[in-house]
């Protein structure tokens, strides 16, 4: 599976709010960076908790990528995210870039680059998985 395929699969599962499907794309000790979550998340348990939180605070959220550059280890893409938060009346849209690295066992790193400052209240709740959480 090429890195680009991993990225497309992630976007598809994210846009369709498929928590388990999205988490299954990551390797066990993957790194997930999403500024709107406030912290870097390590491992599938934390990534699962983070994605669950995103799905809780949004009615819908969709990533659309428009340009890509890749080699056999990494893909960098740019595009935008459109989201409707539960708490807000309107829809927000903002530009973003994504860097994804993969290994045989799945996505090893997914870093999302965007300016979270205008949207700093996305995460007003716990996002870290506890030791007893499941994926």
């Amino acid at each position, binding site marked *: 599976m090429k890195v680009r395929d991993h990225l497309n699969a992630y976007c598809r599962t994210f846009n369709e709010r498929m928590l388990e499907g999205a988490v299954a794309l990551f390797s066990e000790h993957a790194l997930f960076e999403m500024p709107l979550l406030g912290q870097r998340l390590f491992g599938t348990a934390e990534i699962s908790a983070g994605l669950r939180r995103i799905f809780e605070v949004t009615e819908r959220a969709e990533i659309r990528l428009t*340009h890509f*550059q890749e080699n056999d280890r990494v893909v*960098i893409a*740019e595009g935008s995210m459109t989201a409707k938060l539960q708490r807000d009346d309107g829809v927000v849209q903002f530009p973003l870039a994504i860097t994804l690295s993969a290994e045989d066992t799945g996505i090893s790193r997914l870093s999302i*680059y*965007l300016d*979270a*400052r205008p949207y700093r209240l996305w995460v007003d709740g716990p996002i870290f998985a506890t030791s007893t959480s499941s994926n």
Partner: protein
Amino acid sequence: MSKTYTPGQALRTYCSAYERRAEHEFSDLFADNAIFDLPLHDGRIIGRQGILDEIRTALIGLKNIKVVLDHVLESESQAFAEGVFYAEHVGIPPHVDGTPMRVDFKFVAILAVEHGKVVRWSEYFDTKPLKPRERTHLYPISRLSPYWDGTVAAGVSEFMVYNHMYFPLVYHHSPAEEYVALTERVCLWDVGCERQTELRGPDAVRFADYLTTRSLAKLQVGDCKYTLACDPQGEIICDPVLLHPWQNVIWLSHGDADLTLWARGIALHVGFDVEVCEPDVAPLQIQGPRSVHMLRDLVGPQVEGLGFYKCQPMRVAGIDAVISRTGWSGGLGYEIFPLSSERAMDLWNALVEAGRPHGLMVTGPNVFRAIEKGVTDTAYYSNSGMNPYEAGHARLVDLDKGDFIGRSALSKIASEGPSRSTIGLLVEGDLPLLEWYWPITDDNGRSGEVRWAVHSFQRGQNIAIAVADAALQQGDKVYIHHSKGTSEARVTTVPFA
């Protein structure tokens, strides 16, 4: 012939030039109609010159820059890169523990090249960790400026309490951005805390003459004067700008001192026919070389005829005000004194809108430029016991004008000569945050104290203003003793610029 670049070459040239702060190396990198899109800016910058101006400003405000590219993916016309940017701010004092103020972030940069020139440069990174999350906490015992909503919308984050009112000082810009805006464009300052001590009545001018140190014998309606109010010991209380906007009315537009209480108390016990009050007049300052163009658009051509240290009643956006050609930038600028705060935000909004085509930036008063120009403030004299001769203000004392408060003490000081003087200091190396005045010494046992210190963007080094032993001469070496050790400095004159 102009140099051309592949996307990868352009990317590496940009990063390398940034690290070396080599401003000239950016000059042929961008196409004339290039787009520059960074989250730190309010919007896209379109056009080569605007991009170069922005890069120049950024380089003024950063040092010890390092750019690490982790991944570079390149095609014939585009490069995508992921990396980390490291730098230290210039002009922001370090944290209290001495560690520098850093601006470090991970980013993705995407650029497109056509005919060997960059036509688009976009960066993606999170500015949230780079800027304060919210303004400092406030306490209701101090007043809010009538422009409060405007300053909050402009992103104010820090205040000082000044004349019992919150004074917005720090916004979400770097000091370099604010310095460039002031020296090349125009800035709007909320100085609503700069209160007016109004003297009204047939003896208004005579009473002002008694309260302050300069002669007002030749004062005409429409004149302004920079003057001093001293106590009976000759020590400076504050250094107001005196305005005479109408017959029988004087405004002493003053810094952080209870001047109205002082004046009212004196008026109760002397025989002048005058009423003393603090009117609801909250000024704004429009400072910078574009200020006259901006105000001409809003007020009309009469503003161009307003002479230095002159004032005149005018209407600004339909609001009655007095405009004076005064201010705290040491350069071209104006102060607007609306006659009421009822429509304060209408005035603010009209000024912001009128300033938009001129690149107006809402900032606090710029202490960097003020110190370069030797423009001090009441805060310079406070807690110092300083008299006008020590402050370098002998020209502001007219001992022959007749009786005034402090005259006897000042006559004695003038005849004996002051024991201290105000000096400029050119400082070697970095300085910590100035939280209280730093003592200075020299090899001959002479001493003094640094009262203001900043980075000078014009000189590219730290500068300070001190009150010190009057025997210190230009070129003498002194030692500044601060919380992080000792720094060497050379004595120079004030102003620096």
